[in-house]
């Protein structure tokens, strides 16, 4: 192994005890600041630890994140779990092993060749004396170890690890037997079940609660909680709460302060007030004058322009968000499946104006979806309710309608793309203007109003404007900067204000829309000059790893003969231009009824050193499936009063009947940094489907999702 960089978490947590607990004989417990959201990070981290330390995978437990004991590694997001926590734990494992070996050799007074090393125990072949990691952990030497930020080549000489890959997921036995516990399954004595009584939309003030209804609640021992316009009902019996939630809807009256919007969302994206920033090569956004879009009169240069549109998308976890909170002796304990566990601790303490150390957040699994769904809101709401009923656990669950109607969606967006290609097939100009609402409204101690209930608690319905983020590849301009070496680019980020729906981080943020648009448009430019889709990409790339995944994809696709009446498309991206590389191929059929059937998907990914190959495959195939669902089916429907798509009939997602055969390849770059794979596949998936559909129809469809309605409208245009 060449030099190894320990990653950002080691800057703050550089002691072995920050990461390892050897207090149980024969068991290594590992701390991490990342949570399991379906990506099986705990199994991957245990595998990394096992491969380096040579302690058996089965002897390793990953401690569920709890803010009182775990390292703060930020949000579990942005494909950084293995990159950050994996690198930190690998660094801690390397430091542990090097120091343990030295300690054992010194204390046993033997040489390297005289040792037997098994399951974390070193044995002197001659004397049979042993020393284990568990012995070492009791010493001052263990306590004194400082994990280096960088390991140089020399210090890594003794680290010759096997990259074992076949494991049983830590959670799988409990999952298949129904014993895996989610927040939803928490049960404490005298626990109160809670549900929120929601108004029709975001901007409604509570006017009146029917007195007769209050009486009925009282008779049935149901507690009514009202603070400002925030209303909840609570009971020891969960079914009773559900039953009365329906009755409550007709007995609580609201005043609508503002309507949603009747305007076509794509018109609003273009016409509303916006902040416009220039995105430069490298992906950072600046408040600078936007250059005029060029035009080309040279007959040797052909130009083209297109507008791509994407609707609002929802996270839509199968289990609605939930949280359990208790307020006891002036302290809060909150069980949550939020991806922002530490931020929640500070937000909740800020809201109650108390010392953050009086708030402990404990991770408990929730239902997967990848992104900022209702998890943070529900934990905040459970805490607000718990404050009024000390010493009693409050288990608050959102309903299906809550989750569909109140979660922060992935924003609708527009991409206006313009490009020019010369007779040599060189792209000489590329302009991409992205228009969208924010993708970054996770709550924090300085942005409490990002909790959906905050405005109801405070009765402040004034509209607020989000501020554009400027760092490289943040939010709307993620992957707006093409990775290709186009001669000249003009990249514009538009954060549009006063749009109707609440939005925040959905898997990939703006990258899905930007890559789907640009990788579709790249094919359209190439086809002007009859250039093969692989060639146009490879001709504009210098990065060997990028070229490698594309060439690999080409070879993999050539092995399979196309099915009759089927069409293929490809696309590529490197997530954030700095994380994993991914090329995707799709083969599909379009029925006479304009149904799109996915036959085959090829995925080639380079995510640096393979931490856990089956985990990477599950992530990219799962990411493909979610992105295919966005591309083919998904669209939040609303009118001026409320969200219309409140259930799975009105918000269709992909089912088992349209899952392609997968051929997935992971390129191993042993010794290279880990690069996360949670999001890398989504953009290329949208574009590969778009490109295959374009071939099938002979026309580019420029509006997502590719429903029969949208395709028909585009074909008639």
């Amino acid at each position, binding site marked *: 192994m060449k030099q190894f960089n320990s990653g950002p978490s080691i800057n703050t947590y550089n002691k072995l005890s920050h990461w390892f607990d050897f207090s149980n004989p024969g068991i290594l417990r590992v701390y991490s600041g990342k949570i399991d959201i379906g990506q099986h990070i705990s199994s991957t981290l245990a595998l990394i630890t096992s491969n380096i330390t040579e302690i058996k995978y089965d002897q390793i437990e990953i401690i569920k994140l709890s803010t009182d004991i775990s390292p703060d590694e930020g949000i579990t997001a942005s494909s950084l779990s293995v990159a950050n926590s994996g690198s930190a734990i690998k660094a801690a494992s390397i430091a542990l092993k090097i120091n343990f070996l030295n300690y054992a050799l010194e204390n046993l007074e033997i040489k390297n060749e005289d040792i037997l090393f098994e399951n974390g125990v070193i044995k002197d072949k001659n004397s049979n004396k042993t020393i284990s990691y568990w012995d070492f952990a009791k010493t001052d030497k263990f306590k004194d170890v400082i994990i280096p930020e960088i390991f140089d080549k020399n210090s890594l000489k003794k680290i010759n690890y096997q990259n074992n890959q076949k494991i049983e997921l830590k959670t799988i036995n409990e999952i298949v037997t129904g014993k895996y516990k989610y927040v*939803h399954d928490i*049960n404490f004595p005298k626990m109160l079940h809670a549900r929120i009584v929601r108004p029709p939309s975001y901007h409604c003030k509570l006017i009146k609660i029917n007195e007769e209804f209050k009486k009925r609640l009282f008779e049935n021992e149901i507690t009514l909680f009202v603070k400002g316009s925030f209303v909840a009902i609570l009971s020891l019996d969960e079914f009773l709460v559900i039953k009365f939630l329906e009755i409550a809807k007709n007995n609580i009256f609201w005043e609508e302060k503002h309507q949603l919007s009747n305007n076509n969302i794509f018109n609003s994206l273009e016409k509303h007030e916006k902040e416009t920033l220039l995105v430069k090569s490298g992906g950072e956004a600046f408040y600078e004058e936007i250059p005029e879009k060029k035009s080309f009169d040279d007959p040797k240069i052909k130009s083209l322009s297109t507008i791509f549109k994407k609707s609002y998308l929802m996270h839509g976890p*199968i289990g609605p968000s939930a949280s359990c909170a208790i307020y006891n002796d002036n302290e809060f304990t909150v069980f949550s499946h939020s991806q922002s566990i530490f931020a929640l601790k500070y937000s909740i303490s800020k809201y109650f104006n108390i010392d953050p150390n009086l708030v402990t957040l404990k991770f408990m699994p929730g239902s997967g979806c990848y992104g900022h769904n209702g998890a943070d809101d529900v934990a905040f709401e459970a805490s607000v309710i718990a404050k009024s009923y000390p010493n009693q656990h409050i288990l608050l669950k959102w309903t299906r309608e809550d989750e569909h109607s109140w979660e922060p969606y992935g924003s609708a967006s527009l991409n206006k793309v313009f490009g020019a290609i010369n007779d040599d097939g060189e792209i000489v100009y590329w302009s991409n203007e992205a228009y969208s609402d924010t993708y970054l409204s996770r709550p924090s101690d300085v942005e409490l109003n990002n909790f959906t209930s905050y405005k109801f608690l405070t009765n402040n319905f004034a509209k607020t404007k989000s501020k554009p983020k400027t760092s490289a590849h943040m939010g709307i301009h993620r992957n707006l900067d093409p990775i290709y070496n186009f001669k000249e680019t003009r990249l514009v980020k538009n954060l549009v204000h006063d749009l109707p729906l609440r939005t925040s981080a959905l898997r990939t943020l703006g990258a899905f829309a930007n890559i789907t648009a640009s990788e579709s448009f790249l094919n359209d430019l190439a086809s002007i000059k009859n250039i093969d889709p692989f060639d146009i990409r490879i001709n504009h790339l210098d990065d060997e790893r990028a070229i490698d995944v594309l060439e690999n994809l080409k070879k993999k696709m050539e092995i399979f003969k196309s099915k009759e009446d089927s069409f293929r498309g490809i696309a590529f991206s490197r997530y954030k231009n700095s994380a994993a590389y991914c090329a995707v191929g799709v083969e599909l059929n379009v029925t006479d009824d304009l149904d799109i059937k996915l036959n085959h998907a090829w995925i080639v990914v380079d995510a640096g050193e393979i931490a856990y190959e089956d985990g990477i495959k599950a992530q990219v195939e799962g990411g493909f499936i979610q992105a295919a669902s966005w591309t083919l089916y998904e669209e939040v429907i609303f009118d001026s009063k409320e969200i219309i798509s409140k259930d799975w009939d009105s918000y269709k997602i992909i089912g088992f009947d349209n899952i392609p055969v997968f051929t997935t390849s992971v390129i191993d770059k042993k010794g290279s940094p880990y690069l996360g794979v949670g999001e890398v596949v989504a953009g290329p998936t949208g574009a590969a489907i778009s490109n295959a559909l374009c071939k099938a129809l002979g026309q580019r469809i420029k509006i997502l999702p590719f429903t029969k309605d949208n395709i028909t409208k585009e074909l008639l245009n």
Partner: protein
Amino acid sequence: MNYLDCSFKINGNLKKISIIEDKTLIYVIRDELGLTGTKLGCGLEQCGSCAILIDGEKKLSCNLLAKDYQNCEITTIEGLENNDGLNNVQKAFKEFNAAQCGYCTSGIIISITALFDKNKKPSSQEIQNALNGHLCRCGSHSVVLNAIESLKEN
């Protein structure tokens, strides 16, 4: 509120409890009997996560009136294990690590168990029919399908 004394035969055990008369089966299973492996996803019979077996048939438990199922054999995910441990479907899902977050998994295992209990070699269409109405958001579909395929081969 009217309460009703009921008895349920669930996972081979007889349970006598007093429930609110119109309580739905899922709340009896999860809250009264503590069998939380059955999940509530939508309460609208649209997502499949609350699937259980009633007299060997797959049913969605979120909208069934509990009192109507007192004389039936009810099986939840917790009751699938037999004398040899996990049933074949559970074994296959375990062998293939066929889950991401796992929230939808127990409902799917229930449906596939019902299918293979009746037909050891179901066609692809029959498997699709069994999976119809089961939603998964993480995208575990491909691994789940591979696990199910392996059952056909055995």
